[in-house]
């Protein structure tokens, strides 16, 4: 009988330093992890424990799995001591993917903050893979400082893709920076898509999610078209352990992406 608690070994092929405290781990799991953009996996750092992360690579790239991770606590602290050649554990995928079938033919307005661009990258790559199916893809991304911007090279490449519109900001520029300065909502003064017919996708720190959601609602996005990555303690990933409860939902099973319509009645959904 399949044991859902059992991780499978995944070798680290490469560790890419994105910023001083964010790294991308390129993994080769021993078995296929057939994830779709928006789903997550439980990553085991042997002996230290597990934590949930969303792959940031394309769902169409099955040979390896990339995860961009910020060092914040005990598990990620232990993870950051790992290097290429080390073996981690992985199980999943879990949760519901972005409903890409609902995105077909519509403009997609993506807003990311900090390391929140990681799961959005998986979405972005899935959209770009079949770009003709969708309307225009807008990406609005904010980081704390120019040093904290992840995927610097990729962002430059993505800006060249036809049908993609990217704008960037940093909260404060302590070095060379040619784009906007201000929190990410400063990129949202004008929203260039037909909000009633578009979808918005947001991932970032809770405080950013709160203000971005407020701005999207003001701009006229319907609640059911605002997709939010909710941060809760997704411990088992199976919809069983109870830790990730968010109102009536278990984020690991019903999310981690939920629409504003689904969570609007929950008291303080953003931590």
């Amino acid at each position, binding site marked *: 009988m399949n*044991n859902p608690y*059992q991780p499978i070994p995944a070798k680290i092929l490469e560790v890419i330093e994105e910023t001083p405290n964010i790294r991308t781990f390129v993994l080769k799991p021993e078995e296929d992890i057939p994830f779709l953009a928006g789903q997550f996996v439980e990553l*085991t750092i*042997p002996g230290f424990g597990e934590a949930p992360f969303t792959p940031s690579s394309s769902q169409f790239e099955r040979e390896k799995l990339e995860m961009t991770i910020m060092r914040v606590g005990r*598990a990620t602290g232990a993870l950051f001591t790992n290097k290429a050649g080390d073996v981690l554990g992985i199980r999943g995928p879990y949760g519901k993917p972005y409903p890409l079938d609902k995105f077909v033919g519509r403009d997609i307005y993506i807003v990311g903050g900090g390391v929140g661009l990681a799961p959005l990258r998986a979405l972005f790559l899935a959209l770009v893979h079949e770009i003709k199916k969708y309307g225009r893809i807008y990406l609005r991304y904010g980081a704390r400082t120019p040093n904290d911007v992840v995927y610097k090279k990729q962002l430059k490449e993505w800006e060249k893709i036809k049908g993609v519109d990217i704008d960037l900001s940093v909260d404060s520029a302590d070095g060379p920076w040619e784009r906007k300065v201000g929190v990410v909502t400063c990129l949202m003064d004008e929203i260039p898509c037909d909000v009633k017919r578009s979808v918005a996708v947001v991932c970032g720190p809770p405080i950013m999610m709160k203000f971005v959601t407020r701005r999207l609602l003001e701009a006229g996005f319907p609640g059911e078209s605002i997709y939010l990555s909710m941060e*809760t303690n997704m411990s088992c990933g199976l919809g*069983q352990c*109870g*830790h990730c*409860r968010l109102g009536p939902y278990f984020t690991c099973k019903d999310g981690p992406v939920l629409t504003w319509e689904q969570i609007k009645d929950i008291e303080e959904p953003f931590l």
Partner: protein
Amino acid sequence: MIYFLPNERREKWVARLAGEFNLFLPVQIEGKIHWQKYDKGNFAIDQLALSEIRAAEPIKAFLYRPREVVATFPKPIDPAQEMSALLFGVKGCDLRGLDVHRKMFLEGEFRDPFYTRRLENTILVAADCPMPRESCFCNLVGLNPFVNRGVDLSITTFDDGWVIEAVSDRGEKLANSAKDLFVPAGEHHRARREEQRQKALGILEAQNSKKWNPELSRAIAEKTSDRSFWKKAGEDCVECFGCLMTCPTCFCFLLYDQAKAKTGADVNQFERTKVWDACYMAMYARVGGGANPRPEFVQRFINRFHCKFMHFMNQHGFYACSGCGRCFTACMGKIDIRNILGQL
């Protein structure tokens, strides 16, 4: 089929069951009922507390272990095949726990293989509660002080013997193998049983005469923002988690990993253990970055009521509460959830 087992043959039947299964039964120890493994040399039939209410421990511990290794790395373990267990004397309220855990562990996208195997290998023999106690309120959560579904055999105790009904095919087989001891029961046994069951229901109705709001889940939702109500309701809580640890329906667990060695060749090997957890714990819902959605106790207190009486009801059609009263029996502050829910 329904049978009768005269008093003088009970011990023989129990001993026979113990020969076939890991037999656990409720016995009275210092005024309290506890589950105990049948011990041939040290068991007399009059120790059996079959006519009493549920034991202090919920039966979930037999199926969903308080602590269990669920994975090893990198070499996986196989969920162990254990000798079949027979729980002799489960109560109507105990079954609510099983119903909740079936929903959580077996009927979602992922099945828990450990729970699956244990449940398949566990024979359930129920016994009526002819004399509900003050702590019992199964009638308020839609249950009865007797069982006629979801078990293998159902026993009703009388002064002169037990009326036994086979409820499942497995139960029928068990009854067949005791044909030399059982005698066929008739309508008068059914009538006696019915009379005793109605009497027990009457006791429950009388002591729990204050009914809950028929739209309890909506009432809880509406009351949620009234923090002073919940603060007062939970003010005697000392956060010992006794209520949650003895609750037969609570399903929360924590997974933690322990390395086999701190250094050397085995450093990558570890064991993953699953332990019961409690949503009252302050750090329960905290995320890796440190944020906590329920830092105040009152939020965690409300969460328990939301989970059991609002979300579970809305999603599965019944309360995640068995009416067993273990929570306030264990409670140092004697917080009686009947009264809290009765005010809504």
